[in-house]
């Protein structure tokens, strides 16, 4: 049961002047009735409000802190303190008025939207630069740790590394194989379609071989691992960070980079070249199948052309990029994990960031490599 909040002008005084100066508050002054209460107050003119000398709160049936707050905004603290409220309501009013007393209206950041936009651009630019700096620093840290443990086999973590190799390498074989097989077939189809017009369909073999050995195998494997493994690294290390496990390691005199990062980096360094090799095989296999079915180039002929025209250097160019990509992906995944700050939200944000960054870095590095190899004539 609720009563509409309303205000009555009390006329009990016989003095003409003071008749306007007392207001009687009635009904429920609660959060539920907030808008009605505000409407009742807005109905008073400014001069009426300033003319009020006393409030009579004896007829207030229910009052809560929202109601006190509203009244305070219109009538100020003093009038409510003397409003003859009932005992419980008086206690409430005292507490709320106390809270209102040291009120400092919060600064509203209602700036120019253009300025906000510029500010946003600046902030993002700085954070990107900051990110690259952190990545370089982390690279140094990882290399430092690697070089210190490299010549001390007793510090090698075989079990952790092997477990990671299984996770990120062995378990990824089916998806990498299937994906590159399909892409190999697609490339061969494209080649067959375009090259056939020039009567050069036989060069499809060269196209598939060239594309897969140099670029596609390593790129596809790296992008797959960036999506599959960098995110896993970030989520694993991130939830450990959120759970203070990283701090626990450090407090026990263990080096988190050595314990957590090195096995992951090493496992990546082992897994990605192997996966690249598998990707090359499957891609070429896909191409070979399409050549056989669509162009009547038998596997034997395919192998003959392949071994005659494709130089081994293409293989080494492709494979040589794998360790670099592996290192970058592992580093970004781990670094983003360490950046997580104690909440589920943060784990999610950094996982996304790690995948985006590692794919971006892989493609960027690949472009740089392509330029470099082109200039070198390899």
């Amino acid at each position: 049961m609720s009563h509409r909040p309303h205000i009555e002008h009390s006329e009990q005084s016989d003095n003409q002047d003071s008749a306007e100066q007392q207001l009687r508050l009635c009904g429920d002054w609660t959060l539920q009735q907030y808008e009605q209460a505000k409407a009742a107050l807005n109905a008073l003119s400014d001069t009426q409000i300033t003319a009020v000398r006393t409030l009579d709160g004896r007829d207030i049936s229910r009052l809560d802190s929202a109601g006190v707050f509203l009244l305070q905004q219109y009538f100020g603290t003093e009038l409510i303190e003397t409003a003859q409220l009932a005992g419980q309501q008086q206690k409430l009013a005292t507490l709320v008025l106390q809270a209102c007393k040291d009120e400092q209206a919060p600064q509203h950041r209602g700036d120019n939207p253009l300025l906000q936009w510029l500010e946003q651009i600046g902030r993002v630019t700085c954070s990107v630069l900051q990110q690259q700096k952190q990545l370089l620093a982390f690279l140094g840290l990882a290399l430092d740790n690697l070089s210190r443990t490299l010549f001390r086999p007793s510090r090698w973590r075989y079990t952790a590394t092997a477990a990671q190799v299984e996770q990120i390498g062995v378990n990824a074989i089916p998806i990498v194989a299937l994906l590159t097989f399909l892409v190999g077939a697609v490339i061969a189809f494209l080649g067959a379609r375009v090259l056939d017009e020039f009567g050069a369909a036989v060069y499809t073999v060269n196209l598939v071989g060239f594309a897969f050995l140099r670029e596609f195998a390593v790129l596809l494997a790296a992008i797959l691992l960036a999506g599959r493994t960098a995110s896993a690294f970030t989520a694993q290390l991130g939830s450990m960070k959120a759970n203070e496990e990283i701090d626990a390691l450090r407090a026990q005199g263990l080096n988190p980079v050595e314990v957590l990062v090195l096995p992951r980096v090493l496992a990546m360094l082992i897994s990605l070249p192997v996966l690249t090799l598998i990707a090359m095989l499957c891609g070429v296999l896909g191409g070979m199948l399409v050549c056989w079915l669509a162009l009547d180039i038998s596997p034997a002929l395919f192998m003959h052309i392949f071994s005659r025209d494709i130089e081994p250097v293409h293989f080494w160019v492709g494979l040589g990029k794998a360790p670099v990509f592996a290192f970058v992906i592992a580093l970004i995944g781990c670094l983003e994990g360490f950046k997580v700050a104690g909440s589920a939200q943060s784990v999610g944000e950094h996982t996304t960031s790690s995948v985006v960054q590692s794919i971006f870095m892989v493609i960027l590095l690949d472009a740089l490599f392509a330029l470099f190899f082109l200039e070198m004539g390899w």
Partner: protein
Amino acid sequence: MVSKGIISVRGLHNQFGDNLVHEQLDLDVAQGEILTVVGGSGSGKSVLMRSILGLHRPSAGQIEVDGVDLLRADSEQRVQLERRMGVLFQRGALYSSLTVLENVLLPLQEHLSLPAEDAEALALMKLRLVGLSSAVADNSVQSLSGGMIKRVALARALILEPDFLFLDEPTAGLDPIGANDFDELLVTVQRALGLTVFLVTHDVDSIFKVSDRVAVLAERKVLVVDTPERVATHPDQWIQSYFQGPRGRAAQHGKSHPVNAKEDA
């Protein structure tokens, strides 16, 4: 037997697999009191609280809040009632993707169609009410200390002007000074707003400082409900070791003879 309280639990059964947590549990919370529920780990304090809040459906029993049978009420009635209950979860359960102000604001925006300015002003008032300055309003939740998290959570619990306040170990993880401050805040707010408070705690200091009555949960039911002083003298062995252990004694001592306690120390 105490007359039926504003919250009344009758014959509550809660069973998880073979594990019987509550059996024929009766409990009454009187209007405007602070009832503290204590009990060993696994005695079902949290399950009891979650049952009353409707977060857990009990196996059997009857729970009435302000005359409404919670387990048989239609959803409209339930929503009405839920809006009158504020909850402070053990670890605050603040929404980590929102700022402090947005956390307090959210229930207000969802349940009432107030103008944005009014809602914000009310939320800021609530933050000040629990002793936080307006300066923290735009902070992210991650940047808060343990004590501040509890205060923001309290502000959020109070924003819809509840009649009932449920607190799950509000002082856990706070330092003694922070815990003491929080207890004082709780009592002040409870007295001023006339709240009915259901408090689950392990903190013996808190029990003596804030409780009107203490309910001890053991052997799958409420063993005893009474004032803290009288519960502390109950002959049950668990209660004795709980209240008469070194921590319990210090807390009681502090309550009844604050000056002596200081001299003893």
